[in-house]
């Protein structure tokens, strides 16, 4: 069974979530502040972590930064609803997904499964892709540009892989969400937009100063071919 670390300072919520997620087939360990979350995440063997943004001692963002310094364990951030800043900061700092609080636990379970599928299941092909200066190696889950490694989060890597495999074609937002994040696109879901924005920044522009990933208005995204 997948080992999940749940870090939230609301003890009662943690207890309820533990019961719920256990019934869904996960094994849950709890942490109630940021420092404990970092210690557990780095010390234990977890398939994924759920971090609340608002925690005592160490905020969810700081905990995420410390975890990311040493580990690439998938992380879902629980953000305050309506705080766009939380979502953007969380995803850019390397969270794999976010869920605004309060949330439906079914949704949390679905996202957990999506993340686990993505990190457990080997890529459909392990064949490297090379387009211009950018090379993507599914085996090691690494990306280089002109030989220099580009640090990507798990979600960003999956999205880039989908886009690069379909280079020159438009990938719609729902296909990208399904293939890249392993879940269904929801109404007013802006996770993909944030991830693509972050990818653009990390990859940098092409020789003409244009972003490598183009937004095709109303239709989706396209990795520019050639």
């Amino acid at each position, binding site marked *: 069974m997948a080992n999940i670390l749940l870090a939230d300072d*609301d003890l009662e919520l943690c207890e*309820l979530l533990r019961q719920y997620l256990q019934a869904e087939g996960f094994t849950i360990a709890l942490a109630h502040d940021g420092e404990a979350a970092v210690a557990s995440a780095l010390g234990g063997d977890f398939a994924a972590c759920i971090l609340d943004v608002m925690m005592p001692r160490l905020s969810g963002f700081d905990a995420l930064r410390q975890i990311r310094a040493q580990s690439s364990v998938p992380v879902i951030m629980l953000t305050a*609803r309506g705080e*766009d800043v939380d979502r953007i900061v969380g995803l850019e700092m390397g969270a794999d997904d976010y869920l605004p609080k309060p949330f439906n*636990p079914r949704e949390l379970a679905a996202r957990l499964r999506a993340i686990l599928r993505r990190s457990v299941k080997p890529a459909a092909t392990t064949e490297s892709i090379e387009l211009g200066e950018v090379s993507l190696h599914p085996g090691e889950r690494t990306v280089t540009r002109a030989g220099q490694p580009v640090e990507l989060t798990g979600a960003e890597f999956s999205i880039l892989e989908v886009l690069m495999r379909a280079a020159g074609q438009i990938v719609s937002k729902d296909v990208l969400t399904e293939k890249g994040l392993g879940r269904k696109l929801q109404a*007013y879901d802006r996770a993909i937009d944030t991830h693509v924005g972050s990818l653009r920044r990390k990859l940098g522009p092409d020789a003409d100063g244009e972003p490598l990933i183009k937004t095709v*208005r*109303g239709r989706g995204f396209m990795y520019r071919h050639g």
Partner: protein
Amino acid sequence: MGRLFWKVFLGFWLTTAIVIVATVVVLSLLVERADPERQRARQEARLETSAVTAQLLLQRGREELTEWLAEQNERGRNPLWLVGPDNRDVLGRPIPQPVRRALRSGRLDRFSATVTAPDGTAYRLFAPPPQRDKRRDRPGILAIGLPLAVLISGLVCWLLARHLARPVHHLQSATRRLADGELDVRVGPAIGRRRDEIAALGTDFDRMAERLQELLNAQRRLLRDVSHELRTPLARLHVALGLARQRGQGVDAELDRIELEASRLGELIDELLTVMRLQSGTDTPNFTTVDISGLLAEVVDDAQLEAAGKPCRLETDLAAGVQGRGDRELLRRAVENILRNAIRHTAPDTVVAITLQQQDTISITIHDQGPGVPEAELSRLFEPFVRVEGARERQTGGYGLGLAIAQQAIRVHNGTLTASNAAGGGLEVVIELPATD
């Protein structure tokens, strides 16, 4: 410098200038009138004594008379003339105009007297009123002095007006900034070390701003805490619901209902917080150049899922390449809320039309095919928690906050948001944003 400055400055200056000019005019009139009058009186008195003297001297002989006359003419500035029967001056001087005129008319006026010599010859003694001394009438004094006085008074008035108007200006701009949500604005430093009513007003303004800032901070803190505290039980409620679903059987309908209401409660809290944040102006908008055309396409794209669920169709007519200045996230939310509202209220299987045009302003029109809104309620449509009676009832969802958020967001952009019932039916909401040059 504003209107107050010019009013005070011009008002004071005009008044002082008028007073200066009027004083000069009145004074010079008085002097001009008083001076010849006095001289005339003196001349008359002199004539009287001179006539007596001349009479006496004539009896002694002509030599003494001419001697005395010459002496008189040397001492005084107003000469005396003694004209003999031959119409010549005794001293042989040329006879001045007024004397000649008096001689010709033959009338004795008050400036002449008849003196008879012992031999019976009649002389006439003239003491004509003094001619105006042209040299004393120096026009230079008035021509330079008067404008100079007016100019100096202008300078003084300018200083005075600035002294009065400047702090008022500081207060005005500070008040405006305060009203725009810049709560840490204070006028104390700008007003400086003056100690008058205006300075007191400035101190009071600062105290008021201080208090306002405290209150708003407290309110903001309270709202944040309350919303956080409300979200906590709400989050537990959702999980407890999930647990109930895992275990319970046969109560799904009830659980669905509980879940729906819990979600609504969550949405309500979110929207409430957003309205509060926008109203208090605590979020400093992040203004950049925004591709409005792209933004609209994106919002429409995002709403397709909801439109498909209604079902209704979204039709767009978007001018390409429209750019505006604004906070992209706020604008997106404004348009999205209006569009979602339209989708919610349009009749099933109808069209919601989204139009973007740029003329003098950027205008975004969203037109649904719903029941519209009673005319009387239109103006209240964008107020928080206003629920339009009849046509739009509770079951259509929403808490009347989406449009309030939209309006606040548009207000931040100095734009306007108007709603009207379209001629062909349905509600038409128009966003007008200032165009960038």
